[in-house]
């Protein structure tokens, strides 16, 4: 069975990543890819890795034809304003933007600083982390893919919050991110001589992805998450270092059990915590191009602080990869289809 698919906004980084994945997916017929800036150009003009892989050309969104599923890879605040047009074109939608991630329109307004255009639709979208919402995805028509920082942080901490293991107001998360997280629009700060080699405290407080973390991990309780993002000199990749405080003085082997129980059967989660070797904890560079989330931890022997490290490729598990994983679940395909790349070493 082939599913006909089109990508809206395929010249951006997440759209391009999705294009790369869908071109090699055995159950996908990639119909149209849109770009307003590059209408009429071959896709490899913008995504040179796709030379000889496709003869598709970008079309304008106005030329979109009906298909089975639309992937929306648009800038923030675009899909909510045109969602009715997209719904008419396809019975299923996976939106990679932040527009439909939050369930509560008041929370949306608080974090995004403006009213949501279609608060009535917020509950139609399933939040797009398969490890949390797999069952709902099986019958879903609309999925809102999760933010990259949120994905790494949530996957790292979810089992601890779900099991009530940690204090609810002392979580501190520091994420180190690569430059592709900023998208392909240039600005003065992204100019190579200014950006290269930086350790830029990009958003020390009030990052929007915090709202997703609170939504998915509070389980109806009042809690706080203190989140900071630092941009470093990688292109792809993200490492979240999460500091939580255990309610009880657990041993590391008990924490192992919690993670094994939560993720033992997950195809894209690996517990990475080794006592020797070069790569003892999650390392984002090894995950480039893969859909894995590697999670490790270390308990402070002098306190109840647990440090959880979680690494992903922000464009893959943090965006296009997990969107494709959700697509596979929606259609009953093997979840790993199109996502088998294991990464490179050395890199």
């Amino acid at each position: 069975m082939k599913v006909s698919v089109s990508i809206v906004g395929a010249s951006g980084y997440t759209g391009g990543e999705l294009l790369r994945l869908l071109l090699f997916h055995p159950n996908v017929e990639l119909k149209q890819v849109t770009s307003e800036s590059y209408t009429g150009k071959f896709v490899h003009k913008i995504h040179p890795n796709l030379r000889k892989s496709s003869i598709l050309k970008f079309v304008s969104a106005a030329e979109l034809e009906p298909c089975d599923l639309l992937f929306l890879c648009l800038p923030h605040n675009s899909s909510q304003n045109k969602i009715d047009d997209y719904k008419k074109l396809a019975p299923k939608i996976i939106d990679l933007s932040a527009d439909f991630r939050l369930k509560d329109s008041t929370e949306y307004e608080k974090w995004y600083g403006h009213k949501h255009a279609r608060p009535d639709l917020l509950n139609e979208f399933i939040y797009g982390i398969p490890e949390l919402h797999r069952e709902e995805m099986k019958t879903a028509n609309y999925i809102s893919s999760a933010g990259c920082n949120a994905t790494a942080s949530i996957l790292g901490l979810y089992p601890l919050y779900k099991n009530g293991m940690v204090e609810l107001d002392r979580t501190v998360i520091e994420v180190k991110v690569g430059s592709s997280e900023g998208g392909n629009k240039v600005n003065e700060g992204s100019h190579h001589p200014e950006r290269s080699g930086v350790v830029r405290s990009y958003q020390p407080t009030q990052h929007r992805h915090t709202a997703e973390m609170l939504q998915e991990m509070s389980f109806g309780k009042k809690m706080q998450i203190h989140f900071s993002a630092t941009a470093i000199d990688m292109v792809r990749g993200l490492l979240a270092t999460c500091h939580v405080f255990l309610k009880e003085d657990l041993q590391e082997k008990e924490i192992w059990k919690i993670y094994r129980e939560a993720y033992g059967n997950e195809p894209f989660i690996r517990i990475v915590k080794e006592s020797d070797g070069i790569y003892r904890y999650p390392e984002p560079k090894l995950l480039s191009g893969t859909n894995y989330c590697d999670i490790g931890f270390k308990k402070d022997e002098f306190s109840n602080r647990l440090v959880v490290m979680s690494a992903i490729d922000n464009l893959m598990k943090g965006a296009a990869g997990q969107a494709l994983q959700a697509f596979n679940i929606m259609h009953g395909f093997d979840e790993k289809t199109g996502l088998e790349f294991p990464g490179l070493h050395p890199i």
Partner: protein
Amino acid sequence: MKTECPVCSAEIELAKDSVQGELIECPDCGTELEVISVTPPAVKEAPQEEEDWGE
């Protein structure tokens, strides 16, 4: 022939020809373990080599 890793609680399957004193590696946490008994199967953490891992 199953036992448990003392570091991470992973299930450790001892090979049929395991002998006491043999060194094995935990498949989950990578810790080097010493077989201290075959019947019943039991392992303990082996002495670590000197640390050679830096920033």
